[in-house]
């Protein structure tokens, strides 16, 4: 029970520390704003049914998520070791394993929260994208400007509210802004259900493509895997070295199928490298959604098993390394 409470306490601390970093808010806001602006800037005239908006949203989720995951993991552990707070914590009856696992769980929470924001933005962005609307009187392409504007303004409104709370109640700006952002996104999500594409009141219908959610979950799993890798590396390496290694692993994983042969014939070395290096292509399945396609939940389940196994294996290696690391 004591160990469980310790785990919870440290997990919470890690999450709070991560969301209080200004860079986290910057990355989240940038992801949401870019996702929201995309359908309003791209002038497609051929009825692509929001594919560009959807793919852009998922791509931004992945890209910004990578930075969130790798930087948060690098700086969380490396900074604690460097500043001496790790030694202050580990001098208490806290095991190193528990410390590392709680770091992973805390960062996982943060990644989940970020992904939730990115997913909501992608869903709404896809809804905003123009559709061919035909009535008995006229036909044309209609963009849901109202939802789009609400989505674009949400991050700025969140910062405004956080500014007010910081001014009057001295609450920390960054973490407050992030929490308010989540609330505002949920509100925008809900409110948009009461309006149609032209901004007129109608019966409640969110009009979003729920099939985007499995794609978003897959990306979240990829971010969790990268977080585990970054955390394990930062047990020994400094921030910069970990970031460079994560960058290298990301590039290798992205081109894994091409370089190490994928499912085709390959040498023993290539096979080993293919197995060891995480294949990010497994988690990028946006193309499957084209022309009304679906990502089956069974695939998501298998990806979950892959991500879970890979993260666990990486963390075990990180734990073994961390156990014998000097903490000054």
């Amino acid at each position, binding site marked *: 029970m004591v160990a469980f409470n310790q785990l919870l306490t440290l997990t919470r601390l890690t999450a709070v520390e991560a969301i209080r*970093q*200004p*860079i986290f808010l*910057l*990355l989240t806001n*940038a992801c949401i704003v870019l996702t929201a*602006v995309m359908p*309003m*800037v791209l*002038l497609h*005239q051929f009825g692509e049914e929001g594919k560009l908006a959807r793919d852009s949203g998922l791509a931004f989720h992945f890209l910004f998520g990578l*930075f969130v995951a790798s*930087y948060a993991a690098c*700086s969380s552990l490396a900074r604690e070791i460097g500043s001496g707070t790790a030694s202050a914590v580990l001098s208490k009856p806290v095991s190193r394993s528990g410390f590392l696992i709680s770091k992973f769980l805390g960062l996982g929470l943060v990644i989940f929260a970020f992904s939730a924001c990115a997913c909501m933005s992608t869903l709404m962005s896809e809804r905003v994208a123009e559709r061919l609307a035909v009535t008995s009187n006229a036909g044309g392409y209609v963009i849901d400007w109202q939802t789009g504007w609400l989505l674009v303004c949400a991050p700025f409104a969140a910062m405004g509210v956080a500014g007010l709370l910081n001014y009057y109640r001295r609450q920390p700006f960054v973490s407050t802004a992030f929490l308010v952002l989540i609330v505002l996104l949920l509100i925008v999500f809900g409110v948009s259900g009461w309006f149609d594409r032209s901004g007129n009141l109608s019966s409640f219908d969110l009009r979003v493509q729920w099939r985007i959610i499995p794609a978003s979950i897959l990306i979240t799993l990829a971010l969790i895997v990268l977080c585990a890798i970054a955390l394990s590396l930062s047990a020994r390496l*400094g921030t*910069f*070295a970990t*970031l*460079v*290694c994560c*960058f*290298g692993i990301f590039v290798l994983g992205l081109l894994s199928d*091409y*370089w190490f042969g994928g499912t085709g014939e390959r040498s023993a070395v290539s096979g080993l490298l293919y197995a060891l290096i995480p294949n990010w292509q497994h988690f990028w399945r946006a193309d499957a959604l084209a022309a009304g396609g679906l990502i089956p939940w069974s695939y998501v389940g298998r990806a979950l098993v892959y991500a879970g196994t890979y993260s666990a294996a990486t963390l075990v290696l990180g734990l073994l390394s961390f156990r014998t690391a000097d903490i000054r």
Partner: protein
Amino acid sequence: MIGRVLAVATLTLRGAVRSRALFGLAVLLLFLMIGLPMTVKGSGSPASDVNVLLYYTLGCAWAVIMVATLLLSCAGISRDIEQEKIRLVAVKPVRKTEIWLGKWFGVLAMNAVLLVFVGVTVSGLLSWKIRSWDPATKKRLRQTVLVANRTIPHRPDDIGEDLERMYEIELDSIKEHGRETSAFQRKRIRGSIRHALLTAYSQVSPGNGKAWQIDIPRAAKVGEPMALHINFSPLSGEIRSERGSWSLSAGSDSELVIEDRIVAGMGNRIPLPDDFVSRGQTLSVRFENATGGSSVVFDPEAAIELRIRESSFARNLFFSLLVIFCQLALLSAFGLAAGTFFSFPVATFVATVLVFLSMTGHYFVVSEKSDVLSPVGVQPREQSVFHAVGETLVLGLERISGPALRLNSLVKLSNGLLVSLGSVFHAMLVVIGYSAVLTFISCIYLSRRELAA
């Protein structure tokens, strides 16, 4: 002053070396430069192998060094401020400018070391590859890729009169339907017509011909190996050969007629005698499409170009790396400036976003000119507010930083084109100019900033 700047520069370089950042980067670069050519295959020909080595491998190396430079330079001052190490430096008789310049030179020194490493490795890999090729292949490569060729383009097609005429017709047609056009829409219409005309002028149907003129500048090196490069495709889009004849003349003494099948696609080449043209002359080129074939379309902007050997590949590689060094110098100045204002992660974010926008803003300009989404005869849609604001911001940023960040020498190097001394000087001037501005702004802010909480 120099002593203090050098002291800070040495400190920065030492930090990079002892944090094993430099070593880690070198290992990553080595892995990339050896691994990438082994796995990324071109068309299998020696020329494409060399192209892969030069363009993709050097390009990846450049990208890695660029990311590392941004990270290190953003951390240069921001981490010292966050960790309060700058206190002990700031209380010494050293100016903020000296600290800033010292950090910058330290990062430049690291870049120089890495680029030398990259250059030596690429040269070594090339030498190793070349050894296995036969003499004829080596000779061909030394004329096409492993060389520094000066490119002389043809005179552009004169479409001015036709453009104005069709533009007036289009506007009158829109007015007749009772509609008005905004400045944005008129710009788009003009662009559409220009694009359509260039495309029409570039097409040569069977039984017809097209002529170009190439003006040889007085500074050109004559008496060196030269070739005419042609870029054309069949109208149907399939890659196959087309029969036609090429007539070239330069003055009364030089004439050449070639009748042959030339494979459609980019990169056709007609070698010319070394003394075919003289300085100040005009080379006339005429293509006759054989009857019974199909229409071909030439590249509207670069249908043909004369390439004359100007210098060696080694010199070209050196100058190319110098241009890359200048680019990295500017990036590091950017990163240091961001690190002066913001904390490390925020500085990295801001610098990355600005650099990304600056580098990709150019494509907004390109898409603006091509405007393939608005066919002639269709009034373009009015520009949305988002589009207008975004375009203004991005193009504005591109105009400011584009001249610096568009110094891309790798394309030229991998295609055997000359990276001139002029382009190196231009790159240096851009770096000095922009870096001076960034240094000035950053040092003013740094001197007004409290360095101890």
